[in-house]
């Protein structure tokens, strides 16, 4: 817990440093007609640095030595995070490649997670993985006209 506390505080300290750097570039004093762009961020950064320094002292002095997370409890967390990242990449990968679109990716992602973690029957998995994207498509694309990223399947269906 103490190490995680220190690392987080260090991260916030770094954030403060970055903000401080950019604020001085923008000007921290009086601009043409009022406080310059960097004025507010500058003071936020100063206060953040002072506060996180305090948090670090606190953590070092009386932080608990209990582990932040044990290995067996971290595994299910990573099992959630990994597939979510995969889901986003399959939807629309960064860079010039095109993805499968959100609906197809959502179906694949749900199927993968239900099968891998939940070990549900293939029939259940398939039914839910098809039904959820279809229902979502009707609600968002048809009723509320909120467009989601689409891919080859939607093209092929003519949307």
């Amino acid at each position, binding site marked *: 817990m103490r190490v995680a*506390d220190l690392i987080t505080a260090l991260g916030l300290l770094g954030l403060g440093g970055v903000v401080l750097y950019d604020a001085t570039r*923008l000007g921290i004093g009086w601009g043409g007609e009022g*406080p310059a*762009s960097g004025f507010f961020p500058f003071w*936020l950064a100063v206060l953040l640095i002072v506060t996180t320094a305090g948090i670090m002292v606190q953590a070092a002095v009386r932080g608990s030595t209990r582990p932040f997370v044990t290995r067996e*409890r971290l595994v299910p967390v990573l099992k959630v*995070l990994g597939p979510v990242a995969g889901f986003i990449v399959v939807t629309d990968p960064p860079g010039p490649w095109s993805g499968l679109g959100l609906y197809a990716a959502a179906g694949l992602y749900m199927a993968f997670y*239900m099968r891998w973690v939940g070990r549900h029957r293939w029939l259940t998995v398939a039914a839910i993985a098809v039904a959820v994207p279809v229902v979502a498509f009707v609600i968002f694309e048809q009723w509320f006209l909120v467009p989601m*990223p689409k891919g080859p399947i939607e093209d092929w269906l003519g949307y």
Partner: protein
Amino acid sequence: MGLENLVLGFQVAITPFNVFIALVGVLLGTVIGVLPGLGGANGVAILLPLTFTMPPTSAIILLTSIYWGALFGGAITSVLFNIPGEPWSVATTFDGYPLAKQGQSGQALTAAFTSSFVGAFFSIVLITFFAPVLAEIALKFGPPEFFAIQLLTFSSFVGLGGGNPLKSFASILMGFILASVGLDIVTGQLRLTFGFTDLMKGFDFIVAVIGLFGIGEILLSVEEGLRFQGTRTGMNPRVVFETWRVLPRYFRTFVRGSIIGFWMGFKPGGATPASFMSYAFAKRFSRNPQRFGKGELEGIVAPETAAHAAGVAAMLPMLTLGIPGSPTAAVMLGGLIIWGLQPGPMLFVDNPEFVWGLIASMYTGNVLGVLMVLTLVPFFAAILKIPFAVLAPLIVVVCAIGSYAVHTSMIDIWYMLIFGVIGYVFKKLDYPLAPLVLALVLGDLSENALRQSLIMSGGGLGIFFNRPIAAVITVVALLFFALPAITPWWRRLRGVSASTSAAPRET
């Protein structure tokens, strides 16, 4: 002048379309409140993009109804599954779950819903009369007063929030910093973008809320190995009416809880302390305090009444001052801005049909809500029978859709994931998330209020102390900020050991 406006409001709120919207909202909200990872703030954030094309009044009725529903939903999981959906439902589990285990979950749920309704109703009546008065006063406020009030809002998180004051303050600062990323509309300069075009748009509070509360909550749930070991609902009309016959006995508890809730809820972050305080008072004044914690009906009435009175009271500063009292109210305030409305006292002058429609819809929404949850409890409880391996990816997909819909941009889904990890780590390390969200929403408003004040004064900070109203509020705010530093010293002065109160918290 209040009543004719309320009549006007009811004419807006009772149109068939708006009643339908309220019904849908309460239903969705209860589902959202029952599901892990989808609290009130997060649910409202996900559905906010769907309201962009609606008339603002219907949109706010939908969002507030979701909020009422989510508040009711929290009670269901607390009583039946011993899982508080929201922090202010924690006190409800003390007596709710024991009662459920004794086979009296019907009585417990009826008491919880009825108390919620009574608490909420009390606050709505007070809002009806106080809101116009407060708005009238607030109309005379200038930038210094508004900045002082915002300072007060954030100081109460630090001084009265109950958590680690340094970490609360760091959360606030981080929220403000995230809010300042992107284009500075006053000078036209780019801030904190470092040449990345993706950062120019800044961080949207909706995405932050979905990530911090939605994804973060799911990560916490899987880590803790969430299991729903439910008890039967045991709801039927006979149980409801029998419980209603008993409840008037707790009249004093209802009144006390409502007052505590309204008073605490008016200030930000107040619902959770209000529920605990009300529980503690009920126990102290009870004729049989030894039964508390073992399944005493009064132990449900007290926290539920206070929590809902507080949840509704959080709407009062949002409507009249443009300062949200809770993360959910903060998301709604963001919605107002997106719909093209200016939050704050001018709303009462420029958009009376909106304000009064909203206030009237609080009455209808809560009446609909209590009737709906009383009849549909088995359905809501059945949702939690769905295996977690199905629910978790479903909630993630809904969160991703909600994040993308805000600006139709892929980067927002990535931000959602990053905020999810931040939410998980912060929650474990006891950094509060609510002030971060509030700061992110209020960032631009606060900065503008500060800038305009400084322009008025020519750069001096004296303006916050020269004007009587601003001075009083600023001094109180500074006092709250200093409270965590003063308290141990004050205790030592009175001869009480400071170390007992400052024991490190592990959560």
